[in-house]
């Protein structure tokens, strides 16, 4: 089902998602915990069931994006200009966004309730359930960001435009401190997400980034071999399954 978006300003949109729009994958929760398919002990599998019952109640999923002009600065800068601000994304992201005419700066969040619940359990009598709830929340916010990206693709398709993969500050050698620049171009408290001085988003289960938009762009495999981060989970776990990457 299509998501309904609300305009929050010029070319700025917010969507609210139901858990059923997102459908976090149980198998993904198990593999993120470390277990091979079918090998998770029954007890922990029961904890995933319990978490899956809580997720629809405790997730207040919001996503949003702002469309801005994008261009390359020329010269020797490793970056892109989005909405007249220079983002020093590094060469990997720059190359991928090179053919885009617009950039969709986005944020997606689960809201704070899941992480509060997980933290409380972890500190109380049920640390294993707390940990599983935390992992499930991380998997869910990723799935929600996938859904937001699919929504942006649909919207752009109706304008005859295509989208690139999504890229997040803190990945592909793009410094996480550039979150400040990204948030400066979004409305205050966009989707209920705020940024701390140290570039940390609250709620924690949030993802930010940019997606290139244009006639000439396309989604492609992430070029992990050009990034030095060896223990990036996406390289380790997801590269073989899909060519997707964000936080």
């Amino acid at each position, binding site marked *: 089902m299509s998501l309904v978006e609300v305009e929050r300003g010029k070319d700025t949109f917010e969507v609210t998602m139901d858990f059923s729009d997102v459908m976090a994958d149980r198998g993904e929760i198990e593999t993120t915990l*470390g277990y091979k398919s079918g090998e998770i*002990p029954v007890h922990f599998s029961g904890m995933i069931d319990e978490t899956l019952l809580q997720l629809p109640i405790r997730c207040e999923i919001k996503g949003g994006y702002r469309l801005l002009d994008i261009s390359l600065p020329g010269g020797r800068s490793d970056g892109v200009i989005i909405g007249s601000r220079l983002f020093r994304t590094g060469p990997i992201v720059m190359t991928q966004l090179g053919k885009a005419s617009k950039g969709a700066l986005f944020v997606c969040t689960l809201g704070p309730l899941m992480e509060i619940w997980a933290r409380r359990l972890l500190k109380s009598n049920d640390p*294993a359930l707390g*940990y599983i709830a935390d992992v499930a929340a991380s998997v869910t916010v990723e799935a929600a960001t996938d859904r937001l990206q699919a929504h942006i693709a649909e919207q752009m398709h109706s304008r005859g435009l295509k989208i690139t993969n999504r890229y997040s500050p803190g990945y592909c050698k793009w410094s996480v*401190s550039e979150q400040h620049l990204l948030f400066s171009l979004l409305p205050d408290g966009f989707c209920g997400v705020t940024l701390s001085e*140290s*570039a940390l988003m609250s709620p924690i289960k949030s993802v930010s980034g940019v997606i290139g938009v244009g006639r000439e762009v396309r989604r492609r495999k992430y070029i992990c071999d050009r990034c030095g981060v060896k223990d990036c989970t996406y390289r380790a776990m997801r590269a073989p399954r899909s060519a997707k990457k964000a936080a």
Partner: protein
Amino acid sequence: MEVAVRKIGECIERGKVNRTSPYPRDMLGQDGSDELTRQALDSGITAEAILQACNEGMKRIGDKFGRNEVFVPELLMAAKAMNAVMSHLKPYFQTGVVKTKGKFVIGTVAGDLHDIGKNLVAMVVEGNGWEVVDLGVDVKTVKFLEAVNENPDCRVGLSALLTTTMLNMSKTVMGIKSRFPTTPVIVGGAPLTQKVADEMGADGYAPTPQGAVAFLDRGAGR
């Protein structure tokens, strides 16, 4: 007597907390570390012998974790079983009959709110016989300095999850080392590496809670 103690160690390794606990499946309806510790103490087994068996149980589950045979949930069940033992042994610690291995002050550095990783480390280190002083998240250098001042023999663990907050970590390491040069400091968190830890002047780095235990148990940095 030996069998009773060995059983407690097994409960720790398997994460069997008490009789009503449904975990693990194959120990359903059996006594757990809670009941067995009470029984052992009542029958005259020393707190020290019980603690020794627990540490061995913790070591076995830690080794399995290191070999990827079990994962964090199993480790947390073991920590929970260990807590049940500790609640019975508390009076013995208070009177000094048994001693913890030492104090471990841990916190997530200034500007960072991530606590899952830090909490896991704290739980596993505590389960391995250390007294943990958890300072929480967003901990400024001065708070670490106060804690070291209050616990002069402690070791310190710092956690950070973003490269931006890793800079604050570096400042905190420097702060601790300049005032308390002999206090061992270990750092951890997703963006850390041994190289970065060395550059910061930390005494150790570990990617897992087990690594933190190994660092502390070998008396590293002292």
